[in-house]
């Protein structure tokens, strides 16, 4: 088996430079690559384009990169919950490309799957479709959307093995599998790194072929954005 293991986030992020385009997995704060984000802050790289469904909160997730003004452009479907984001966006410091969530997911998938572009009904007749090719299929209008071209994808999995095979947990899967497919270099950080043979091949969500570097993550905070509970009776 091809061994993909690197020591830590520092080693995993070798080659990261100013001005690059990254994909970062996660939905809200669920399933985000916490260790990679911390290391991007440490590296101080700037002028980044970040493709991620959301932009974190003020003091966690991608919010940490926003605080240090490291992000030039965000490509997301929903960016609430973040005051610093709002300030930078309204002042024009931060460029923001908002795209429908399903289109974002499919554009990530297409990137990894060798599909340069595809038609989707989402956004037809709205400002999302402005300047894009449209075409009718089966009596319904569709919009042409393109794949991305990221240098790195950073994903977070629950378990992974040394060959880069990944298993996600709960709704922390979200965008991670498609982004793992899409990165020229995909870095996977995992809560539990195991030897090959320990994961059941039937249960693998992301085959190791999509992962170039994997490391044992540490200190996961896994912050909950909206803690909603049913009171104990």
């Amino acid at each position, binding site marked *: 088996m091809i061994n993909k293991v690197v020591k830590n986030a520092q080693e995993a992020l070798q080659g990261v430079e100013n001005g690059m385009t990254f994909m970062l997995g996660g*939905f*809200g*704060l*669920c*399933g985000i690559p916490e260790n990679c984000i911390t290391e991007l802050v440490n590296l101080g790289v700037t002028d980044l384009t970040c493709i991620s*469904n959301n932009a974190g909160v003020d003091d966690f997730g991608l919010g940490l990169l926003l605080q240090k003004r490291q992000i030039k452009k965000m490509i*997301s*479907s*929903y*960016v*609430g*919950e973040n005051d610093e984001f*709002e300030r930078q*966006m*309204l002042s024009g410091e931060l460029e*923001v490309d*908002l795209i*429908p*969530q*399903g*289109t*974002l*997911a*499919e554009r*990530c*998938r297409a990137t990894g799957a060798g599909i340069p572009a595809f038609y*989707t*009904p*989402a*956004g*037809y*007749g*709205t*400002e*999302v479709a402005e300047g894009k090719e449209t075409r009718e299929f089966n009596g319904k209008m569709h919009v042409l959307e393109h794949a991305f071209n990221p240098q790195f994808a950073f994903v977070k999995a*629950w378990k992974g093995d040394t060959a880069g095979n990944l298993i*996600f*947990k*709960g*709704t*922390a*899967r*979200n*965008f*991670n*599998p*498609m982004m793992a497919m899409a990165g020229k270099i995909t870095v996977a950080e995992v809560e539990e790194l195991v030897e090959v043979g320990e994961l059941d091949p039937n249960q693998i*969500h992301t085959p190791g072929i999509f992962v170039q570097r994997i490391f044992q993550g540490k200190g996961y905070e*896994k*912050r*909950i*954005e*909206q*803690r*909603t*509970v*049913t*009171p*104990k009776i």
Partner: protein
Amino acid sequence: MALTKQQIAQRIAQELQDKWYVNLGIGIPTLVANYIPEGIEVEFQSENGLLGMGPFPIEGTEDADLINAGKQTVTILDGGSLFDSATSFAMIRGQHVQLTVLGAMEVAENGDIANWKIPGRMVKGMGGAMDLVASAENIIVAMMHTNKKGESKLLKQCSLPLTGVGCVKKVVTNLAVLEIKDGAFHLLERAPGVSVEEIQNATEGTLIVNGEIPEMKL
């Protein structure tokens, strides 16, 4: 009396049909899950990658790795399943989800909906709303009939940036149940004690009133 938000949800729940997969948006739509009619089996889909969504977890059992599309902690019922975002929107665009319930700022008599952007104000994004309205066979909009200034939200034409075109077929508000067809709002039911005249006054778009309009049964 105009309906409360809970009652709007209760009325929408009457539209649920056995064996339907349903996606509920944030706000009033979320409340629909509290009023599933007896004898009916439905499964709720959350577009962040969950089918068979259950109630909020018992205090102390919440799991950071199990949330809904509103980022709230939830549970998963027996028989539920988990998947990635591309698969989730394949379910939505591929019309495997039978009903979408979502809120709106404006709905027009041609079925256009606007619910994601107010120019000049902070734009948070459309999330999955554009994919949902572009694809769902059945879309029910849950909303108040008028805005905080008392202006109608059921219009001839949307003034805000659109989320989708010609897609809404049914609207349930605090005053009425309306069907959108042939470029007009057709009044189907009134909220208990609300007159047709009140509904007419609160509706800017073309309102068709055919015969006696019954009161909703809650």
